[in-house]
């Protein structure tokens, strides 16, 4: 500090300009819009344990299969405590029933009545269920318990089986029940004087 104080201002500015010029020789200014070269390349093998998403067409479904019967056994040991017998009356989300209720005053949204794609069921159960031990089921177990839940909703027979080919072909009752955001459907009005309340 004291060294700077003794120097005349002009000399100080000159020294600063020189050091700026020197440092410019050693570092590259980064141009906007150019990749910075940060980050590390990553390949499919490294990513395998994370790359678990299933899309609506079933891309990403792993090899394996499971039956409704095997699924019932898994459900009754791993799921029933929270979701209830037959997917109803548990402390967690209801998983069965409600078909035909969506346009009523008391709609019941479940996998069977509401979900548009069966692939979502596999994707979600594999990543997040059972709640107390996520990502602990094998692909065969996820196929099986998915098959059982679809069976509970009348979407797969008692002797049904699911695999990567058959799961995306399950036709969900509410498949065409969704439309992309079409708001504004409600337009407010800016009345200031003698307005009708609540209108």
């Amino acid at each position, binding site marked *: 500090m004291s060294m700077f104080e003794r120097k005349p201002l002009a000399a100080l500015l000159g020294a600063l300009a020189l050091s700026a010029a020197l440092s410019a020789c050693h570092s590259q200014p980064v141009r906007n819009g150019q990749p910075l070269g940060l*980050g*590390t390349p*990553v390949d499919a093998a490294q990513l395998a344990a994370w790359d678990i998403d299933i899309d609506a067409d079933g891309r990403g479904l792993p090899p394996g299969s499971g039956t409704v019967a095997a699924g019932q056994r898994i459900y009754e040991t791993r799921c029933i405590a929270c979701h209830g017998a037959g997917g109803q009356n548990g402390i967690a989300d209801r998983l069965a029933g409600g078909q035909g209720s969506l346009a009523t005053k008391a*709609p019941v949204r479940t996998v069977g009545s509401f979900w548009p794609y069966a692939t979502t069921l596999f994707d979600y159960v594999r990543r997040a269920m059972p*709640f107390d031990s*996520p990502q602990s089921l094998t692909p065969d177990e996820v196929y099986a318990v998915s098959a059982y839940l679809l069976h509970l909703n009348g979407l797969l027979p008692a002797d049904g089986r699911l695999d990567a080919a058959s799961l995306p072909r399950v036709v969900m009752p509410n498949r065409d029940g969704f439309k992309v955001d079409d708001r504004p459907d409600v337009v407010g009005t800016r009345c200031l004087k003698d307005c009708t309340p*609540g209108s």
Partner: protein
Amino acid sequence: MPPYLPPPGLDAGADLVADKSAKPPGRRRFLQGGAALAGGAAAATLAGSARAAGEVLPVPAWTRSQGRPVANPYGQPSGFEGRVIRRVREGAQPPFPTAASSLTPLADIFGTITPNGLVFERHHAGIPDIDPEQHRLVIHGLVERPLSFSLNDLLRFPAVSRVHFLECAGNSGSEWRPARKLTVQSLHGLLSCCEWTGVSLGTLLQEVGVAPEAKWLLAEGADAAAMTRSVPLDKALDDALIVYAQNGEMLRPEQGYPLRLLLPGWEGNISVKWLRRLKLGTAPWQSRQETSKYTDLLPDGTSRQFSFVLDVKSVITGPSGGQTLKSRGRQQITGLAWSGHGRIRRVDVSIDGGRNWEEAVLQTPVLDRALTRFSLPWLWDGGPAVLQSRAVDSHGNVQPTRSQLIAARGTESAYHYNGIQSWQVLPSGEVHNVHV
């Protein structure tokens, strides 16, 4: 009806100052009109201060001894502010406390920035304790160079800081039902606003090189829900942030430490916390959180999907549900307004349940897709009143009434409630949630 007071005068050292450039002639009239009410205001002030007139001011203990030493490692609010905390909704007992929410105490915070410890929470599998050294953000799928970024990598990109609100799509959802006498925290507290710092997602996408056929990307969290949402690529390139800090410090664990997505103006759920992966693809994935949840069921049984933007909205936070006005006379009506479409242009306030409206004062600066503080002084004559606020945004969207919303959407759509809130003030001074 009790008259409005003029807004604080520009020469009175008021901290809430109207944007003068916006409407100079109207403002002048407002002040002149206010002069006529000055007599009434002065009378009320006299009545209010009479109570304290005989008070002798003592020298308290804290003036006669040393306070606590410096180096309080992380500062905490005064012990007298212990009621200002997040809470779960009154009467709610979440069966799974890790798949639950807590609400911001909107009536007890000031200005527009939510303190980090009070930002609302919504988790689907609890708050993970993520080691930032081990955490990675992977961007892959339809890209030229799949890359994995450490936090350290991300800190080397140009940092961007922006103030934006965050609101859960389910905020105010109990208002679809008959009015319950809840506080503003319980009714509307899934709402906060922070200065978010991070990297523009567009910058990262440039780094990996987006394939021409990519249209959507999947965002995935590293929590035990491994939560996923599909994001349109246009939004990702437009204004999405990969955030590592909020209000000047690293993200709080409950806000996604060490990394989260932030999509300004969009429903909170899609701003995926604990972000670990972005995968580019051609179509939405139809994940559970964009089919089973966060879709808006309409009376005909169909549902609106990918309803991302949060519409224009406002709420009076004081006086508000559960509070009691202590005395007649001057009150300060204050509240928050916001819109996922842009800036707040104006907020109107009614004290007679929506018959007549007066324009409130907006605290500046008014920022894009951020909470905006409004206020309006009010002389309460002790009679019944119903307070309402109505926001208008920079796109001309006007906040609708509850009945307009229900006429269009029924009562089962669960999300995206943005109706005008009504607070009834009883002669006792008690304030309750009502529907008019």
